[in-house]
């Protein structure tokens, strides 16, 4: 049976109420807008890429607790990483949240992101958790917008 506490863990609640790196970035050299048309989650992601590393990353926008916490924790996790490393991290994150009810497991490299393990028990919220990541990857590819319906 699904327990709410699996989804709304302390870490997630904390990050949704006090999101980290929640600001605009005037000197960003990669920007993308992510949109989940089904529910109204929408965020703008800013990245400063230098010598193939994420020097700074931030976001603004409105959305549910899951998408906000995911964006917040993601910005902490990808700082200093290369686009390839960020992609690899997302692949592991995506595998964790889409594992399906009862099959979730975490990899130790996910660190704090493991808090989203519970999303796998609530499949309808997967898009909330992955929207910030899709937006980040789109930004790094130089695409101005992305949507979860893609």
């Amino acid at each position: 049976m699904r327990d709410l506490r699996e989804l709304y863990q302390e870490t997630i609640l904390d990050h949704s109420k006090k999101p980290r790196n929640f600001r605009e970035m005037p000197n960003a050299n990669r920007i993308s807008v992510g949109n989940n048309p089904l529910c109204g989650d929408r965020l703008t992601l800013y990245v400063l890429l230098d010598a193939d590393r994420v020097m700074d990353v931030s976001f603004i926008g409105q959305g549910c607790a899951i998408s906000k916490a995911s964006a917040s924790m993601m910005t902490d996790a990808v700082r200093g990483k290369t686009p390839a490393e960020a992609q690899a991290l997302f692949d592991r994150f995506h595998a964790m949240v889409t594992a399906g009810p009862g099959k979730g497991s975490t990899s130790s490299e996910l660190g704090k992101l493991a808090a989203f393990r519970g999303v796998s028990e609530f499949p309808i919220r997967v898009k909330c958790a992955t929207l910030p990541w899709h937006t980040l990857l789109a930004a790094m590819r130089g695409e101005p917008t992305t949507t979860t319906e893609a």
Partner: protein
Amino acid sequence: MARAAKMLLNVSAIRQDFPILQREIHGAPITYLDSAATSQKPKAVIDATADYYTRYNANVHRAIYELGEEATREYEGAREKVADFIHARSPNEVVFTKSTTESINLVAYGWGLKGRLRAGDEIVGTVMEHHSNHVPWHFVKDHKGAVLKYAGMDDDGRLRVEDYDELITKRTKVVTVTQCSNVLGTINPVKEIAKRAHEVGAICVVDGAQSVPHMSVDVQDLDCDFLAFSGHKMLGPTGIGILYGKSQVLEATEPLLGGGEMIREVHLGKSSWTDVPFRFEGGTPNIAGAIGLGVAVDYLKHLGMDAVRRHEIELNEYALERLPEVKGLKLFGPADAKARSGVFSFVMDAAHPHDIASILDTEGVCIRSGHHCAQPLMERLDVPATARASFYVYNDLKDVDRLVAALQRAREVFA
């Protein structure tokens, strides 16, 4: 804290008729508050569709054998029931479609695009419409050069009928409006609006998806030219909808689907159409759906639409009293229980609608969150999304209590 009220409808008896309401969700009794999205089905409707497939499944209008006669009789019988339900002059004014969306598209294409609209002709809608009553008119604008205009609304969800003074001109050909908003619950003065349309020779197209299931609707009294609604929102099956049209307006409408059943003669290179309403029913229809809808109409008639409406007003009064107890909850739509249907959209300081719906789900309370296919309205309300609870004949005051208790719990999770 529930009142010891004797509700107009015997909800406990009604709930027994709905098999799905006996389910538990996550260990809690189901509190289904999303009838605006789709209604649950009484056993009689479920049995009727199964019965058709079990005993007399055959294609309609064509077969000479007994099964075909029975199927046709039940299908056309359902059409008569619907016509009677909305007080149409004749069953020939009732077209079976797939949905409200298809019905409105039929009008936009058949009367508008393929028909008599010219570049510069005006179509007047409102800011509170469902996407199904926005997008088809965008097609007409894109392909015909029609001009789109919109009546606005006050912050409490009242349609600004006075806007029509400026918006309706001698170039207006279509005035389209929802009889009841799927977000705000606002009930609009369709009769008055139809009159304004007719003054300039325009037709009035009404979206009845949220009204026909919830109140008595008399198309002759309203004098609308078209009325669209869906079977699945009024205890009927999915995949069946209705377009009502005045005979003379239907005659002036071209079909959307060309094919079998809607023709008189077909030769290589040309064909002629049969009479209305059959002209608009190309291809094998959703026979089981139509029959199921007919039984749904029987069920509602048995309850009595006036009783259905008064029951909802009672629920509205209680909801309007209890919902404001939740701190930080902002309710949209009319504050008058009699001026609205049982659709309640709201936002909360504490949590995003998505999160509210997730938490309520764990307590077996089913509400909707999102933009409810009304993005222009969300913009007007200046919110990205709302949570929405909607009532129907199988809800009672305890459901309101459960909703409020669950919302208090949601507040606690995020406090």
